[in-house]
C-alpha cells in the first residue's frame, strides 16, 4: 500500500536535516495531535488541549529555536543554505496533523526572518530575542502585526500602495520609537503573543519606501493590549484578535533593518509566507490522502471497495494528481528561496510574484479537492469524526489570508505583463 512518502519530492534537494526532523515531527503528530484534534474546535478559546502539543513541539523538541544562530542557542537555519527546504518539510509535517498549529508555529518565525536570515542578520536583535525562545521548554509565540481595520490586505499590496495606507505610526523620540496603532487578525495574537513585529510608518500617507518601518515590540511593553481571540470557521490552534499599541516605547534599535531595507526585506517575509502557505496545503493534502485511502478501502459499493468504482477512482486520481503537483511546486519554490545565486533574491519582485502564483494555485486546488472529497464521502464528509471537514475548513483560511486570491492574481499579472495600475 502506498504511503504519503510516495508523493514526489525532488530528491536531489532534500536538506541534511530533512529526514531526521521529518520523522521526529511525524511522531509528534501521530502521538500528540492526531488522536486529539477532533476536539480542538471547542478548545479555540482556552487551548487546554492544544497548548501541550505546542509546548512539546516548540519548547521541548525545541523547534521554535531553529532560526537563531547556534551560539545563541538556536540551530542556525537562518544562515544555512536550506532554510526554505527544511522549513517546507517541517511545516508540511506539522500541517498534516493540524494546519492551525502549523500556522502558529510557522508565524513565530515570520518576524524573526527579518533579523535571523542572511544577508541581513541583525546580530544585536538576535542576541536580545534569542533567550526568549531558546531558554524555555514552553511554546513562545511571535506575530507579525500587519493588517489594519481599514483596507485589509492593502498593506501587503506593496508595489502599488507602497505602505501609504498604513495608519500605525512610529515616531522617534530620542533613542526610542513611540508606536501607536490598531492591528487586527495577526496569527498568534488573541493573547498568546510574546513578541510583535509591527508594520508601521514613520510618515503616514507617504509612498517613500524609507518611511516603511518594521519594528519589534515585546508584548509585555506598557501600552500593548491584546484582545481576546475571534471565533472563526477553523484553525482553532491559531488565535487571532485585535492588538492596540498606545504610545508604546521601544528602543530605537528595535527597527529591524532600517529605512529602505525594512521594506525590501519585508518582501522576503511575504515570500516565506507564501512558501509556508503551500507547505500547509501540501501537508493537509497528504493527510487527506491517508483519510481517503482508508475510507475508500473500507467502504463498499456494489460488493466491491468503493475505490474500484471507476468514476469514484477518477476523482481520487484528480486529487492525488494535485497533491503530487502541489508538493513538487512547493519544493521547487523552497529551492528558489534557498538558491538566490540561481533564482534571484528572495525579496525580488520575481520571487514574490511567483510565490503568489504558486500559493493561489495550491489553495485553489486544495479547496476544490476537499470539496470533492467531502462530496464523495457523502454524509460522512461532514462528520467531525472523519477529519476531512476539518481540513476543508482550515484550508479555506489559508486560501483567504495574505490578501487572498485576488491579490495573488494581481501581483502575478503585474510581474509577467508589466502592468502599472492594478
Amino acid at each position: 500500500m502506498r504511503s504519503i512518502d510516495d508523493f514526489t519530492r525532488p530528491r536531489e534537494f532534500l536538506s541534511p536535516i530533512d529526514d531526521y526532523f521529518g520523522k521526529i515531527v511525524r511522531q509528534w503528530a501521530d502521538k500528540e495531535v492526531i488522536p486529539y484534534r477532533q476536539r480542538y474546535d471547542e478548545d479555540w478559546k482556552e487551548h487546554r488541549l492544544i497548548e501541550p502539543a505546542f509546548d512539546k513541539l516548540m519548547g521541548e523538541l525545541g523547534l521554535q529555536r531553529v532560526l537563531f544562530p547556534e551560539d545563541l542557542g538556536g540551530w542556525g537555519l537562518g544562515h544555512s543554505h536550506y532554510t526554505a527546504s527544511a522549513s517546507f518539510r517541517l511545516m508540511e509535517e506539522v500541517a498534516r496533523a493540524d494546519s492551525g498549529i502549523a500556522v502558529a508555529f510557522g508565524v513565530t518565525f515570520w518576524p524573526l526572518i527579518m533579523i535571523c536570515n542572511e544577508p541581513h542578520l541583525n546580530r544585536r536583535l538576535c542576541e536580545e530575542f534569542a533567550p526568549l525562545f531558546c531558554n524555555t521548554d514552553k511554546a513562545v509565540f511571535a506575530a507579525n502585526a500587519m493588517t489594519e481595520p481599514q483596507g485589509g490586505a492593502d498593506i501587503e499590496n506593496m508595489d502599488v500602495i507602497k505602505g501609504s495606507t498604513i495608519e500605525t505610526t512610529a515616531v522617534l523620540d530620542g533613542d526610542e520609537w513611540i508606536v501607536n496603532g490598531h492591528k487586527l487578525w495577526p496569527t498568534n495574537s488573541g493573547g498568546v503573543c510574546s513578541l510583535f513585529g509591527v508594520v508601521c510608518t514613520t510618515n503616514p500617507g507617504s509612498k517613500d519606501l524609507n518611511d516603511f518601518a518594521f519594528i519589534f515590540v515585546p508584548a509585555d511593553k506598557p501600552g500593548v493590549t491584546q484582545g481576546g481571540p475571534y471565533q472563526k470557521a477553523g484553525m482553532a490552534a491559531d488565535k487571532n484578535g485585535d492588538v492596540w499599541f498606545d504610545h508604546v516605547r521601544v528602543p530605537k534599535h528595535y527597527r529591524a533593518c532600517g529605512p529602505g531595507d525594512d521594506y525590501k526585506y519585508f518582501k522576503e517575509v511575504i515570500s516565506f509566507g507564501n512558501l509556508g502557505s503551500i507547505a500547509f496545503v501540501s501537508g493537509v493534502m497528504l493527510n487527506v490522502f491517508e483519510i481517503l485511502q482508508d475510507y475508500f478501502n473500507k467502504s463498499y459499493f456494489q460488493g466491491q471497495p468503493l475505490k474500484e468504482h471507476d468514476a469514484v477512482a477518477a476523482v481520487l486520481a484528480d486529487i492525488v494528481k494535485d497533491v503530487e503537483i502541489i508538493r513538487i511546486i512547493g519544493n521547487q519554490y523552497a529551492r528558489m528561496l534557498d538558491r538566490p545565486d540561481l533564482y534571484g533574491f528572495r525579496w525580488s519582485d520575481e520571487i514574490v510574484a511567483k510565490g503568489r502564483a504558486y500559493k493561489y494555485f495550491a489553495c485553489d486546488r486544495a479547496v476544490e479537492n476537499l470539496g470533492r472529497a467531502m462530496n464523495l464521502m457523502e454524509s460522512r464528509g461532514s462528520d467531525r469524526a472523519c477529519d476531512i471537514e476539518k481540513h476543508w475548513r482550515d484550508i479555506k483560511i489559508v486560501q483567504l489570508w495574505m490578501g487572498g486570491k485576488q491579490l495573488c492574481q494581481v501581483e502575478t499579472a503585474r510581474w509577467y505583463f508589466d502592468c502599472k495600475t492594478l
Partner: protein
Amino acid sequence: MDRFNLFPFPNDSTEYSDLLLVQTLHRWAETEVFSKRLELREDYEKLLMPAMQKLFVDVELQKMIWPEDCGGIGLNKREVARTLAMALEQIGRADCGIGYISAVTLTLCSSFVFDYNFKEELCRRSAPLFCRADHITIGSLVLPSFKEGDPSEKAPVFRGKPLPARARRDGDKLVISGEKMRPLNSGCDALLFGVLCALEDSDEPALILVPGDSPGLIRGEPIIKTGLTASKNTDITLADVSVPAGNLIFHGEDCLRRMLSWFYLNISAVTVGSLFTVFEIIKEWGDTRVIKGKGNLFKENPLTASVMAEIGHEIMLSRLLLYQLVAMFSRPEDFNHREGDDLYVPALSIVSHITQNAEKTINQTMELMGSAGYATEWNLERYWRDLKTIQVHLGSWELNKMALSRYFYESQSL
C-alpha cells in the same frame, strides 16, 4: 432587504396567500433569527429550537401540507410546489439548518399525504402530531449510505448501497431491525422516522414510518458535524421495533423516486434562499469596503466586481432553474415528458446544479471577504458549512450521475 425582486422568477401562478406566507416568514426570520444571531451565534437551545418552535407551530408550517379534514391547511396537492419553494427560500435564507429540517419533514409527510401515494389511514393517524400539537414535530429519513466493511453479506443492496434496515411482517405488525443507521437529520430529536427497509424477500425498497418513541429504537450520542446545528443528529438502532402494518408508506422504487424528487425540490429552494443571504452579505461588503486606499469602493474595482458578478449570476440562474422545476411539479402536463418518466432526473439534475454552484458561489464570496469570510461574526461561514453539509447529504455526484446515465443513455449495469 430580501432578494425577492432582484432575481427574476415566474410568479404568474403565485397566489395572494403565497405572498402573505412569504411576508410572514420574512418577519419570522428577522425577529426570531437574524436579530438574535449576533448574540446567540449557533446556540441550539437558545436560538434555533425557539425559532423552529415559532416556525413549525405558531407559523403553522407543520400543518401546511396536511389535508384540511385532518386539521391541516390542505395544501396536499402537487400545485403546492410553488408555495413550498417560496416558503423554503425564506426559511433557508434565515437558517439553512432549519430549512433543511423543514425540507426533510415536509418530504416525509408528503410521501403519504400527497396524491401520488395518499395513505388515508396512516395520514389520519399521524395528523395530530402535526396539526393538533403545540410542540414541534420533526420528521427524518433514513436512506442508504455507506458503511465500513463489505456489506454484501449483511444487508440487501439497493442500487449498490446497503439498505439501512430489514423489515418482516408479523401479523398486522411490521418488525424492523437495523444497526447504527445515520438519519438525514435530527437523530436526537425527530419524532418520526421514515426508514428505507428491505422488506422480506423483496429486492425493492420499502419506506416504513417509525415513531421516535417506539420501544427498541435506540438513539446514540450526538455527533459533531461541520454544519446544520439545528439538526442534532446521531445514529439510531432499531432492535426489532414493531409498528402497525399500516406504517408501510410505500414499497418499490417508483414511489422512492417520487419522494426524492420532492426532497430535491425542497432542498433546491432552501439552498437558493440561503444564497440570498450570501448575496446580502457581499452586497453590503461591496457597498462599504474600500480597496487600494480611501475612496475606492470594493464594488467599483473591476476584479472584485467581476467575482461579485459571478455570484449574482449564479444565484439568478439557480433561481430560474428552481422555478422551472416548480413548474414541472405543478404543471407536468405543460412539459414534453416522455411517457413514464417521473421528475426524478430533472429534479436530481437541478438540485445537483444548485447545491454545487452554491458551494462555488459561497467559496467565491469568502475569497472576496478575506478574514471576514471565515470569522464567525460575519455569519457568512455558517452558510458555507451548512450548505456544504446539505450538499453531501444528497449523495455523491459521482454515484448520482449513474442515475442520469441510465436516463440519458439507457445504461443497464450501472
